[in-house]
């Protein structure tokens, strides 16, 4: 079963078309294994991307280099998944 320890979900703000294109460049870098929860679309629309732990530094460096603002929407995906599983198992046990 795939685990997501250390994976983070970043919310990127792209203020203009050039910035949207920059994020699309990121999308094309397959080795980063990025999972866009909300893909790059029009300026002003939030872009949410799940970043595997090994890619986090590179992605944040890329965003900061290109002046793309971001916030961390989910600090650690696995911790949310663990909570979800606990809730399901608790119910099933009951």
């Amino acid at each position, binding site marked *: 079963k795939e685990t997501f320890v250390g994976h983070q979900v970043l919310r990127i703000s792209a203020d203009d078309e050039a910035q949207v294109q920059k994020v699309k460049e990121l999308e094309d870098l397959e080795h980063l294994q990025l999972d866009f929860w909300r893909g790059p679309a029009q300026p002003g629309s939030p872009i949410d991307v799940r970043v595997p732990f090994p890619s986090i530094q590179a992605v944040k460096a890329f965003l900061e280099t290109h002046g793309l603002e971001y916030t961390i929407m989910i600090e650690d995906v696995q911790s949310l998944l663990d909570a*979800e599983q606990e809730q399901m198992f608790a119910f099933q046990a009951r």
Partner: protein
Amino acid sequence: TRSTDTFNYATYHTLEEIHGFMDMLVAEHPQLVSKLQIGNTYEGRPIYVLKFSTGGNNRPAIWIDTGIHSREWVTQASGIWFAKKITQDYGQDLTLTAVLDSMDIFLEIVTNPDGFAFTHTKNRMWRKTRSLTPGSSCVGVDPNRNWDAGFGMAGASNNPCTETYHGKFANSEVEVKSIVDFVKSHGNIKAFISIHSYSQLLLYPYGYKADPAPDQDELDQLAKSAVTALASLYGTKFKYGSIIKTIYQASGSTIDWTYSQGIKYSFTFELRDTGRYGFLLPASQIIPTAQETWLALRTIMEHTLNHPY
């Protein structure tokens, strides 16, 4: 004893548990609910649709599906709640009773069974189908890019390793083809609502082109009424508009195809939230999400009933 009254709607369930729920609901309401199998998935799982009908023959119908993107768990969980709600409200709620006295409702709760099973066993983040693509080591097609409406145009990917891969050809995915065949053979569906998450949006055609839909004004007005009804419960704010204007260009999408089949009231929902938990919405939000969405669905169903075409 286990029943749909003791079933826990406030937690996420496995495919087997959902199938068990369906069978319980049918057994408890044999005059109202039946379970149809419209096909088998790529990996051979049955594809079930619940039919809610009070009689008649091939009545005008409303279609609701959830879970076409398997990781959007709040949608399948809401679909379970909708199924129970329909049986509870028929004969109680005037609007729903009027709808079911002259229309049928079809509800497909797990529209991507292979992907859903995979989210429970191997990868909670899986979105697509689980079909194999010859010549590629990557698996799956985005079932919301595989429909024969602008198929393969901008707004989908031809790379099998991406989340929006459209597939080798339109309807290549049996999970999609099964619905296409059902809609065509039924021939009397008047509203088609496909439910996704997240972002809190109510969308109507088109996604693959910027031209306004011929029924744009009516769809926009109905969407406004629906999101107003939705917000009346917990204040949850939804945006609404055409797919391409409200989020992005998306080709080969479900409701662009259903609309092209003459199903005027074609809508896509994107449920909670707007980006705190995303696809990992806590189970504590399942019931409130389903309750508020139901008010929007009820608005669309009432409009469909009152505006026959």
